[in-house]
């Protein structure tokens, strides 16, 4: 549990800038949600038994969680690791690079969870998530955050410079958002594309969150949870491996 000191360090910084941080975390997905949701929603019939805006709110909950986790562990993580050398100073204390990586990943997941939870709260206020089952989206959001924070941290510890992240964002994150059912049901994609989406973590987050928002228990919940857990665990192990390599040099 030594990672908690690292988590708390990041939490204290966040607390100083809490208003700006929450606003920026929220503004993007909410503008998208209400802009696209209401605009497109007026043109579209209901999808999977829910209004388009509710359908899209469930997707946005997942994609916003993914983006917050990824940005925190890549950009903010890189700033702490590379720019400010904060990790170096932590390593003078009786903490190891494993503790730092764990603290960073859990921190990014926590911040991402807050993004997801805030979107859920807004959706609930607008009557888009009325079922008590929506509470179960909260642990799912944390798990989605954990998976993407861990993958983001691999990128962070591998990065030589800031440009490195644009490959991951442009070539992986943006297409993943398109094919994972955030904007439209992934099932209408061509089979090979759907199959590809199914090996990526975001799809499984959406498959869990959307039925819950609609008030139904998700099908194959164990499978979706398992995929997210495996992503989180394996990516954390890989991030630790590369971080050890980077820091023991």
């Amino acid at each position, binding site marked *: 549990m030594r990672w908690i*000191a690292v988590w708390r360090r990041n939490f204290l910084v966040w607390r100083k800038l809490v208003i700006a941080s929450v606003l920026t975390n929220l503004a993007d997905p909410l503008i998208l949600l209400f802009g696209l949701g209401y605009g497109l929603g007026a043109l579209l019939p209901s999808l999977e038994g829910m209004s388009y805006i509710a359908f899209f709110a469930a997707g946005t909950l997942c994609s916003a969680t993914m983006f917050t986790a990824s940005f925190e562990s890549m950009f903010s993580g890189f700033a702490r690791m590379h720019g400010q050398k904060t990790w170096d100073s932590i*390593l003078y204390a009786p903490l190891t690079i494993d503790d730092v990586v764990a603290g960073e990943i859990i921190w990014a997941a926590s911040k991402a969870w807050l993004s997801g939870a805030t979107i859920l709260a807004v959706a609930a206020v607008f009557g888009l998530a009325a079922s008590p089952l929506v509470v179960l989206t909260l642990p799912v959001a944390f798990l989605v955050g954990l998976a993407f924070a861990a993958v983001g941290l691999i990128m962070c510890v591998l990065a030589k410079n800031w440009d490195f992240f644009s490959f991951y964002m442009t070539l992986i994150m943006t297409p993943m958002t398109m094919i994972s059912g955030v904007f439209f049901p992934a099932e209408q994609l061509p089979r090979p594309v759907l199959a590809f989406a199914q090996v990526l973590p975001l799809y499984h987050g959406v498959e869990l969150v959307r039925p819950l928002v609609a008030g139904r228990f998700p099908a194959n919940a164990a499978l979706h949870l398992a995929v997210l857990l495996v992503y989180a665990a394996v990516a954390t192990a890989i991030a630790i491996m590369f971080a050890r390599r980077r820091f*023991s040099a």
Partner: protein
Amino acid sequence: MSALKARALRKRYGELEVVSGLDLDVARGECFGLLGPNGAGKTTTLRLCLGLTHPDAGEIEVLGEPVPRRAREARRRIGVVPQFDNLDPDFTVEENLLVFGRYFSMPASEVRAKVPGLLEFAGLTGREDARINALSGGMKRRLTLARALINDPQLLFMDEPTTGLDPQARHLIWERLRSLTQEGKTLVLTTHFMEEAERLCHRLAIMDRGRLIATGSPRELIAAHIEPHVVEVHGNGYEAWMEHARALAARVERAGDTVFVYAADVAPVLADLRNHPDLIYLHRPASLEDVFLKLTGRDLRD
């Protein structure tokens, strides 16, 4: 009991062996200086002693703990002042100490109680709420030193503690370091400044190409490795004079347009120089820097 003991230490990065068979002994309460040109392996040696990087061969014991195996336990009782300040720019002066104390699992109340004393030690009283970017280079160094003391360490590792500081700031750091040795703390520092090493260190080791080439107190090193007097000569005709001077002194060296004459008795040299009014000269006692240059050579190390 020794504070630090390293035996036959080796560390290789790719083709280059940065530390090649290093033996090191630092006694408790000692201020020990590790001198060496750039690339001698000083920083790597410190990282090895902290357990931040693992040796390819050899053994390290720090405060009785085998490193790297029990490096975390050792680091509980160690303070580190790195070569480049890495204070946390997201926090104020006081928060830097509070957050750092938490990395040692110290209770918040205990850290809080220590902060005023540490700030006073660092000459930063009244600056608790200052942002790190608003501090001068000297203040940052002092805060880094205060941060390294948060866990009341028995042993301090310092990598070039005064590099980049102006003389005032440097003298203040020296004074603080001396008061730490008086408290009985063990200091291990690397430096390029011979003056710093001569003033602060009880014992020194000169390191080059990954191994120790000399150890001893500053006086012992000077006595053992170099003639006691130096005459530096430059000006018109110094090259011709240099050939001539070889007959007058034990050792004559040239660096750029200056001739260095080393001898136990420089009277014949000085007498001869009076016949060469074009030459400008300076007669001084030999210093640690002369030892350093003799042992590591005058070539640039980049």
